[in-house]
């Protein structure tokens, strides 16, 4: 459902959209039933001359069932949603699959700094490539990112990946993603970070490994902020 509004481009995007759909079906059912009964009752019991309202206390078991049974069913739906939510959460946020590459993402007012491994594929070596606002990754490879902030709280959000994580000054937060589609996608800052919050956009450039290798070769020897534009 969500993929009709915005494409899915990471391995876990589908599971998050699936969870949203599951919640939509379950709560949508309750919502329609409740609103349906609500309007039906308003219509059925509209004031008519000569008809007095009934005196019901809601204490008899026979009548009380109309509340206690839905009560139990809502609880069951909650348990289903909890289980599904925790499964998705575990997969995206609690476990770390083995990484093909590591990258470092640093938020600052009002730009994203990306430190990516160079030709050797290892982070924190002299051939690392550091850019502002452009993150280059390879389709199908699993990336672990170390997320940091230099000043205030930012949030690293890649909507097509369904990925979001706050960057907190003083901490390094580790996460992961595996892109599944090539293309150029938005990176948004999702936490208000000052007057430049609205221009703190970045771009996620997902390429096949050949194109990515060519980009690395272009940027060798690496210079800091070598690449302002694509």
């Amino acid at each position, binding site marked *: 459902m969500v993929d009709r509004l915005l494409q899915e481009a990471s391995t876990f995007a589908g599971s998050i959209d699936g969870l949203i759909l599951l919640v939509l079906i379950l709560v949508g059912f309750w919502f329609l039933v409740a609103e349906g009964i609500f309007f039906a009752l308003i219509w059925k019991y509209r004031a008519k001359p000569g008809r007095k309202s009934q005196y019901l206390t*809601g204490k008899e078991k026979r009548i009380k069932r109309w509340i206690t049974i*839905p009560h139990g069913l809502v609880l069951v739906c909650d348990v289903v949603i909890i289980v599904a939510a925790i499964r998705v959460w575990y997969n995206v946020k609690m476990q770390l699959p083995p990484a093909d590459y590591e990258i470092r993402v640093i938020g600052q007012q009002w730009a994203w700094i990306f430190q990516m491994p160079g030709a050797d594929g290892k982070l924190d070596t002299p051939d690392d490539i550091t850019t502002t606002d452009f993150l280059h990754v390879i389709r199908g490879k699993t990336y672990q990112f170390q997320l940091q902030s230099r000043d205030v709280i930012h949030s690293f*959000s890649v909507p097509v990946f369904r990925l979001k994580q706050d960057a907190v000054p003083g901490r390094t937060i580790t996460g992961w993603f595996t892109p599944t589609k090539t293309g150029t996608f938005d990176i948004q800052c999702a936490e208000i*970070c000052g007057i430049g919050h609205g221009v703190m956009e970045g771009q996620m450039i997902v390429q096949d490994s050949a194109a990515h290798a060519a980009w690395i070769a272009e940027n060798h020897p690496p210079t800091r902020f070598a690449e302002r534009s694509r």
Partner: protein
Amino acid sequence: MAEATAVEARAHAEHEHHGPKGILKYVWSTDHKIIGMQYMFTGMFMAVIGGFMAYVFRMQLAFPGLSVPGFGVVSPGEYNALITNHGSIMIFWVAMPVLIAAFGNFTIPLMIGADDMVFPRINRLSYQVFFLSVLVLLTSLFVKGGGFGGAWTSYPPLSANSQYNLTRVGASMWLVAVMLEFVAFLLGGINFITTLMNSRAPGMKAYDIPMTPWMIVLASIMFMLSVGPLVAGAIMLLFDQVLGTGFYDPARGGDPILWQHLFWFFGHPEVYVVLFPAMGITIDVIATFARKKLFGYKTILYTAVATSVLSFFVWAHHQFIAGIDPRMANIFTITTLLISVPIAEMIFVVIATLYGGSITLKTPMLWALAFVGEFMIGGVTGIFLGASGADIYLHDTYFVLAHFHYTFFPIAIIGTFAAFTYWFPKMFGKMLNETLGKIHFWGTVIPFNFIFIPLFILGLGGQHRRIYNFQNFPELSVPWMVHLRIIATVSLIVMLAFQLVFFVNVVWSLRKGPKAPKNPWNGNTLEWTTESPPPHGNWPADQLPVVYRGPYEYGHPDREEDYWPQNLPA
């Protein structure tokens, strides 16, 4: 004993003889009805300002860069200040003063048969502190650097350091205003709780109290229990801003996430603090206009208590992706989803109350029913966000924004109008015009849905909050998104325009409306047994009401009339 009598006599003498005269009567009054109206008119004034702010930033979002009529071009700094203060104003200076303070003050003594609050002068102090907080907040918008723009959640380090937020004075003034507002509501809350416990009419047992006073008092208790940590946190934040301490500064051993815990420990119960009064009002209005005994008086009360307790254990669902230990999210997903059970049950009971009724769709009833119908949308969309896995995507998007507007708008606007139109005859002694009331109702509720349903869809499309210009983001500049933003903005303008009908109705009815009888809606509760408007002291001193039964004895088979006022002897 003798001492108590002396105090009583003195209090009485003050009431009767030394009250201020003329216009001062309305400024220095200790009468709960006057204080309620002070809160109400201040809250409505703030609502106009908050609504204007919404108009300005919605125009900017729909037509980026346009010079907004009545404001001018919106700069990013101004945009941030507008959204920050819109949120702060609508919650702290509209929802709370109007729903809790105004209607709490007006209805609690009248509905429980008391001549005034227990502490009338603390009550007056509460409004005065509140008024001061309004002045501080409004001034903060015009100081050097402009109003605070760090969002109503005020996360440090952005809020703590003027090097980051660029509003040194505005940020501190905003914080001081919020703290003063908390002090005002603590004073008011003490009064509500004590009054409900001690001043009930003879014969009124706990289960004979109407829902509105019950809910406002429950809300006050929750507020008192939750606000302490935030006040402590706010003082630390103020120290960080002004004295240069480092409570939230990681470079000096502080932790920015500490603030988030303190803020949301208050912030989530706060949702229920404003929900409960609206719920109580809705229940009273629905019972009156459906001519029905509540389907389950005790069920509503117990579910409200269960919700209050649970609401203290859900706060971290605002922080799933904030960098807390991911294992913690599992606990808070469970508590968050469980809180849907008592709330759903409460709504079921309200709906079931309609069964077997005799429903008249007068304006207050329309508002009350709209509250139930619209609040359900707010309720069910909360489940998406409480499910941690889905929140990874939806957090900080317009889906969140639409969700809480579907809770807060029914609470603060629809609930308020239900209460206002229901008690207007009692407050002012005049009847409101029904036709204008219905035009205003439909003109508010229909555009409301056209504002926020598009925002749900935009949120699902990945549009994040608090971005002043979406043109910088290619994925957010696609035509369907631009069109939805324009639909939302146009609907907002239509809705704001229809509020004029409300003001015309109030002014016209006050001048030319028919005089209100004591009990225009044939209600059971005690406020309908006195004059409209009630005199000082509410009832003549020797005629204070005595209670013989619960508040919802409508349609009783032993009675010819379909209502049975609480004060009629059996």
